[in-house]
């Protein structure tokens, strides 16, 4: 069993008080409780405050480009599906720059967990609006307030039949840990949107703001009903539900790609002997 010592890595370069600290310690805790060793997990991230996270965990890491987390993660999983692959992204990263990959990764349904540190702001670039920033919010680039309606990532995921759709809160670590574990254990593409206070640039959605509003979906909530899940995903305001909104069991991508049914691609040895008759086909 791994211990928290095994997962100790670099010292985080986040602002004191940032919600990312809770997310970091919760991920570690979830991995430890699931008995996953550092060398069994690959964390793929983009650029942003969230994107720095894998440097602060001991694990295989691909910290790539802003917005491009999911294509890298999907392909790494196809190449070696014996790895646990977790994609970590910011809200700008995943829903802004990377919006198209978000949409199409849902359709592919690889067995990957996606954790979005949704602070409703661009943190690393110092406070511009992200796709999830509330309409009307003032920023340096939006002096008239954000003119767009905020994106609803959960509703979007449900609309495309994403196989696992959940939301947690950095300030409710116990619940968050359970959601993380459920996402990692879930067979299929699992979106976990995490409400994360950015104490420096988002003066509206603070720890307190969230605490006053969030509640956990009850045991009576049925995550298998798509229409109900959609309705629930629209709830946002005085009350903000957290938990698993939607689940849909379907075959995962790795089970459908014929080349990797016997063993991971990365373990398939190449031999020129076995392919050289290819040339013959051109005579």
């Amino acid at each position, binding site marked *: 069993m791994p211990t928290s010592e095994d997962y100790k890595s670099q010292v985080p370069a986040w602002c004191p008080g940032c919600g990312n600290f809770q997310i970091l310690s919760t991920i570690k805790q979830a991995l430890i409780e699931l008995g996953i060793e550092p060398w069994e997990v690959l964390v793929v991230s983009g*650029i942003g405050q969230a994107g720095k996270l894998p440097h602060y965990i001991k694990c295989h890491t*691909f*910290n790539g480009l802003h917005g491009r987390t*999911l*294509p890298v*993660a999907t*392909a*790494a999983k196809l*190449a070696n599906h014996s790895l646990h692959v977790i994609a970590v992204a910011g809200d700008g990263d995943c829903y802004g720059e990377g919006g198209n990959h978000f949409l199409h990764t849902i359709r592919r349904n690889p067995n990957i967990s996606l954790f979005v540190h949704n602070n409703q702001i661009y943190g690393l670039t110092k406070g511009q609006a992200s796709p999830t920033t509330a309409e009307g919010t003032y920023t340096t680039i939006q002096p008239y307030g954000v003119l767009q309606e905020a994106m609803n990532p959960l509703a979007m995921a449900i609309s495309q039949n994403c196989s696992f759709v959940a939301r947690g809160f950095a300030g409710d670590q116990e619940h968050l840990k359970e959601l993380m574990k459920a996402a990692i254990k879930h067979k299929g593409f699992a979106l976990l949107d995490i409400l994360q206070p950015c104490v420096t640039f988002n003066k509206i959605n603070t720890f307190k703001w969230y605490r006053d509003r969030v509640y956990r979906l009850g045991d009576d909530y049925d995550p298998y009903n798509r229409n109900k899940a959609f309705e629930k995903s629209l709830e946002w305001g005085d009350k903000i539900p957290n938990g698993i909104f939607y689940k849909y069991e379907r075959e995962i991508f790795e089970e459908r790609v014929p080349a990797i049914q016997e063993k991971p691609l990365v373990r398939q040895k190449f031999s020129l002997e076995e392919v050289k008759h290819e040339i013959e086909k*051109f005579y």
Partner: protein
Amino acid sequence: MSRIRGGHNFYQIRLSDQKITASREMVDILLALDLNTIEIHRKSVNEGGFILYDSEIAKKKFEEPEFIDIPFRKIALDVGKNSVMANTVAIGAALGILDLGLEALKKILIETFSRKGEEVVQNNIACAEAGYKYALTNCPKCEAFGIREPEGKRLMIITGLQAIAMGAIMSGCKFYSAYPMSPSTEIMEYLASRAEEYNLVVEQAEDEIAAINMAIGASFAGVRAMTGTSGGGFALMVEGLSLIGMTETPLVIAEMQRPGPATGFPTRTEQGDLLFVLHAGHGEFPRVIFEPGTPKQAFYLTNRAFELAEKYQIPVFILSDQYLAESEWTFEELGSEKLIYNDYRLREEDLKDVEDYKRYKFSSTGISLLAVPGEAGKHLVVADSDEHDEEGHIVEDSETRIKMVQKRLLKKLPLIKKEIEAPFLYGDPSPKIVLVGHGSTYGVIKEVVDTIPKDKKAAMLHFSQIYPFSERDRFDYIGLLENADLTICIENNATEQFAKLLRSETGFEFSHQISKYDGRPFTIENLKEELHAYI
């Protein structure tokens, strides 16, 4: 043509018992299936050539001696019971004119139509025979062309794209992700068609950005990977290219050029992206560019691309163009003997003496060990797009930065340069006239050199390993150019890109330049005509 059906389409086929490697402007036989074809291509028929047509289809009768009126449609209806077989009749007739026999055509007809049932196959064969017989009987002077059915050696028939895709398979490529774009799509189609046989993963991405990032992800995870596209799609991959540079992830990228800018001519050819591909990506990192001149070179260079990409952990390009990519060539010499395969990736066993694996460990060559995440015991593999330390973690300090730039770029460059083969000299060994080309102009320049009288001492210097330039101590091609009286750079673009590159790399200045930028490849005739001014 960017129209799928309807409208004008044509193919040009050149036959010879000599080796041929280029297209000609003029044809000997024009097989016209409609009036439009006659009107557009009539002026391209050589003196003494023929135009096979059907006056009923064309709704016009031509009286000139080169016209041979063959009732394609009527024969098709009579023999095949269906007028759509008029084209089969026509092909039979063309073979009849050449008296080449029908065996090959019959095989193709069986292959093509067998899934439509035996009757369709038989009707088509009957149509081909009827056309053949008609032509044989009615053709005035077929012996003029002097073609005989080839004997002995079987020949391959292959396109540039097929050669690249086959080269990838035979180099251990296991993962290909791309987004459809002419003229690169066939690489993906080919690989998909072989996915089952060779256990390949072929993924159509949602866009080119995903395509290259997927290929990077697969390569990082430990399998040989490749992506392919055309110029416009590659434009979207440029950020990913830079990521390859920073993370030192091996990747082979096929860029099949078509005329730009923007959408340009989607189904035509140009060599307009050379300097773009060479300088693409923000920041500085090494790369290799191959630009094959024939399908054969495409095949072997693809193999070499995988070798160099993995050995140096860099991006390697197969740069080509629609002309080489899509034209079909016959030749004899492809074999698997000369292929190389070295697996530079390290797994459990290979790392048993490494205590503390660091993905970006400094070394005298700049190359660090490339471990496979999850297959390397407890070693962790950390790749980072920020500037990083040896372990792969973000840094900000000046000292590490300098050492990393040296590691990833400055130390590798001279080693890579040593891997590059000299340009290919064809013709006079101490030439006075040198025609210089790169990539797909190989064939046409070579054939034109053959037509220049020996005493003029002409040669072709052809670059297929285009960047970096090979070291001059192996073969002093710049000395050779300096000793010539006339050096002509021949390019399928408007801004003399290769000439600029050679000047910037070596200081050498060509005496002349021939450029073609109408979206068409050079033909033997038009290159000869351009050369008239100088030779």
